[in-house]
């Protein structure tokens, strides 16, 4: 094995790849060769590093120096200074806020040092396409332990004791699920990995697969051994081409090594995995719809009083967990249930629903400085995630709300920033853990508009099989639409509330059962904003254009813009009058409130009230 003195860990997660990280990698290799360092420095493409806001990025090891926002023209200087002369380059390092000093080491950056990595344990440390590197970091040792020293019942006992709950949204205790599936009648039994992550702004599962596919395979192998299954499926959406490619490669490598197939590690146990591609329907992330889709039927859910652990795929016992859950399993096996239960909240020794143990991966998006992927211990506060790790809101804007749990999660206000993040507390607050999406909103976001946005997503993705979800979400969406257009009445708030409860109570699956959450929580925590829209006919965040009044500040228009006339030319309704050199005026009768004048004015002369 060739020894290098430096490894450049270039992030090749989807975010960085979109920012040309493969080109950066190629250019780096060229530059390194030019300097004659190709026998000393190796460039490695890793999975998602997590700090997507800084991409394209890389980490120089063994020094642990973090460089972000790389461009090809930075590379000659970087290679000469850091790699040849050993002097790290401050101008490419992370700067927490303008005016502050750059932070050289990744481990000193606030975004990283509050995180605790279990599911993402190998992120940025291995080339996901090389199984040897994963093995070097301990992959498949938990499988070896299970196959040689534990009975299936003992494995289930450990998972039960660990309090591991499903990371895909439901939070169902994995041990309970495995145990029921093991005891269910019917052969063969199936193990499924749900990689149909469909929440907008969520990319936890994608990143785990892209960065460390063997963690998922190992988790499924352990689960299969515990349940007594020899057939596995990974259901992954077509929109994740890179993740799927790496998964397929990982499966092929694992088969070559005899880690999948017959007689795994010489133990006699056999298990193999097929990859099933989903077409990207949101509802196919629901377990029964997902199974229908694998079977080749229309991806629609069915009533769940018949449990999938007993009658799942092809009506046979099936154990389904999501990517993150599977990826967590090997660590629990290796380190033990006690180690795992020491992290998180509550007590799971008597009741598997009694607490939230371990860590959870969240994707931070929206109005937040450090967009990216973070893994934190359960019980951490929202404030720590958003402000300490996420770096707060850009541009000194005021925090308004955070939506947790994907499009069907609730909006939580600033009063709840100190809420401990776990399954129970989030549900109690009207939101949910969901799969771990976290969308941050600031004062410029209108909460009614956001509720409308998320509801329009879930309504669009509603499969239409059951009436409450199909029709109920549509009526709710229409009501929200009316309110944002200034045609709302006070009774609409009650109507929304009633409809929400009706849809939640009567829908067939969790899609309808959770879709009203944004509307419900926005009414619960931001009632004032509804009243402004309905009674005052005003949108406090000035987002709902139909409620805005656009006027031109004559002073600004004259002194700054000298009556440039751009707004007059661009206005599609010809509602703006004036001549060059003079202040312009908007006719309120003609104005259709499209807001083009605001967008085109370079002098901020158009006021919104």
């Amino acid at each position, binding site marked *: 094995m060739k*020894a290098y003195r430096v490894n450049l860990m270039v992030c090749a997660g989807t975010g960085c790849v979109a920012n040309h990280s493969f080109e950066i990698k190629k250019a780096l290799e060229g530059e390194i060769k030019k300097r004659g360092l190709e026998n000393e420095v190796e460039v490695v493409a890793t999975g998602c590093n997590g700090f997507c806001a800084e991409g394209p990025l890389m980490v120089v090891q*063994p*020094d642990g120096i973090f460089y972000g926002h790389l461009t090809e023209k930075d590379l000659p200087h970087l290679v000469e200074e850091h790699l040849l002369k050993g002097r790290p380059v401050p101008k490419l390092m992370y700067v927490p806020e303008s005016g502050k000093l750059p932070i050289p080491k990744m481990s000193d950056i606030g975004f990283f040092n509050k995180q605790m990595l279990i599911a993402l344990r190998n992120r940025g440390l291995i080339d996901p396409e090389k199984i040897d590197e994963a093995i*070097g970091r301990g992959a498949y040792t938990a499988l*070896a332990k299970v196959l040689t020293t534990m009975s299936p019942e003992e494995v289930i006992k450990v998972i039960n004791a660990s309090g591991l709950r499903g990371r895909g949204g439901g939070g169902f205790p994995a041990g309970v699920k495995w145990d029921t599936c093991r005891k269910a009648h019917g052969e063969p039994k199936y193990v499924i990995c749900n990689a149909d992550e469909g929440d907008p702004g969520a990319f936890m599962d994608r990143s785990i697969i892209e960065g460390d596919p063997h963690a998922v395979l190992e988790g499924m192998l352990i689960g299969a051994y515990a349940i007594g299954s020899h057939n596995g499926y990974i259901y992954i959406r077509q929109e994740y081409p890179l993740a799927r490619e790496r998964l397929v490669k990982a499966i092929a490598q694992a088969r070559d090594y005899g880690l999948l197939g017959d007689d795994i*590690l010489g133990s006699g146990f056999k298990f193999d995995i097929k990859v099933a591609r989903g077409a990207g329907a949101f509802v196919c992330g629901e377990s029964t719809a997902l199974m229908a889709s694998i079977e080749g039927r229309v991806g629609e859910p069915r009533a769940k009083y018949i449990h999938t652990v007993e009658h799942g795929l092809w009506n046979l016992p099936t154990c389904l967990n999501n990517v993150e859950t599977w990826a967590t399993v090997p660590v629990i096996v290796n380190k033990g249930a006690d180690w795992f239960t020491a992290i998180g909240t509550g007590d799971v020794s008597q009741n598997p629903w009694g607490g939230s143990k371990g860590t959870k991966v969240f994707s931070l998006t929206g109005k937040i400085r450090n967009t990216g992927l973070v893994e934190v211990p359960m019980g951490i506060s929202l404030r720590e995630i958003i402000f300490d790790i996420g770096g707060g809101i850009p541009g000194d804007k005021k925090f308004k709300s955070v939506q947790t749990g994907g499009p069907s999660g609730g909006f939580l206000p600033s009063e709840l920033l100190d809420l401990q993040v776990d399954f129970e507390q989030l549900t109690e607050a009207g939101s949910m853990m969901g799969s771990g999406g976290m969308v941050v909103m600031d004062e410029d976001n209108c909460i009614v508009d956001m509720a409308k946005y998320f509801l329009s997503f879930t309504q669009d993705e509603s499969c239409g099989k059951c009436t409450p979800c199909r029709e109920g979400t549509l009526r709710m969406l229409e009501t929200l639409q009316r309110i944002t257009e200034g045609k709302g009445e006070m009774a609409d708030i009650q109507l929304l509330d009633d409809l929400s409860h009706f849809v939640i109570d009567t829908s067939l699956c969790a899609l309808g059962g959770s879709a009203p959450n944004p509307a419900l929580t926005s009414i619960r925590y931001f009632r004032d904003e509804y009243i402004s829209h309905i009674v005052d006919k005003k949108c406090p965040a000035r987002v709902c254009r139909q409620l805005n009044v656009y006027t031109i500040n004559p002073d600004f228009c004259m002194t700054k813009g000298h009556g440039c006339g751009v707004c007059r030319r661009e206005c599609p309704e010809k509602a703006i009058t004036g001549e060059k050199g003079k202040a312009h005026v908007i006719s309120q009768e003609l104005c259709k409130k499209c807001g083009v004048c605001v967008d085109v004015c370079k002098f901020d002369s158009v006021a919104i009230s």
Partner: protein
Amino acid sequence: MPKLKIEDLQRISEEVRHTTVLREGAGRAKVTVHMGTCGISAGARKIVDALLKLIEADHVKDVILTTSGCAGLCSREPMATVELVNEAPVKYVDLTEDKIQRVFKEHVLGGKIVKEYALALGSERTY
């Protein structure tokens, strides 16, 4: 490809251990070669090459080799600093390929400081 047995996992892990240790930045020993302009012109590149060859030839897995800028004592280049875990760093001066080989075998691998090539024990304080 032959199917793996359980002991093969350990073997593969051992084979890639140098890479793993390098990326975790957690070696037992760290050798820093000073590569300022002065160091490079005095032959520091040869020292790095020699060290890399030693690491490869001896299948050493837990030693990290790194470079840094000028150490401030340009007249005694090429220089290298050897740091063993929990021990004070030692600076070696006026190095040649033969000298660094001895330092590597005796100090880095053997834990015994090669006194005749060493400048001093310890490093300057940094703020």
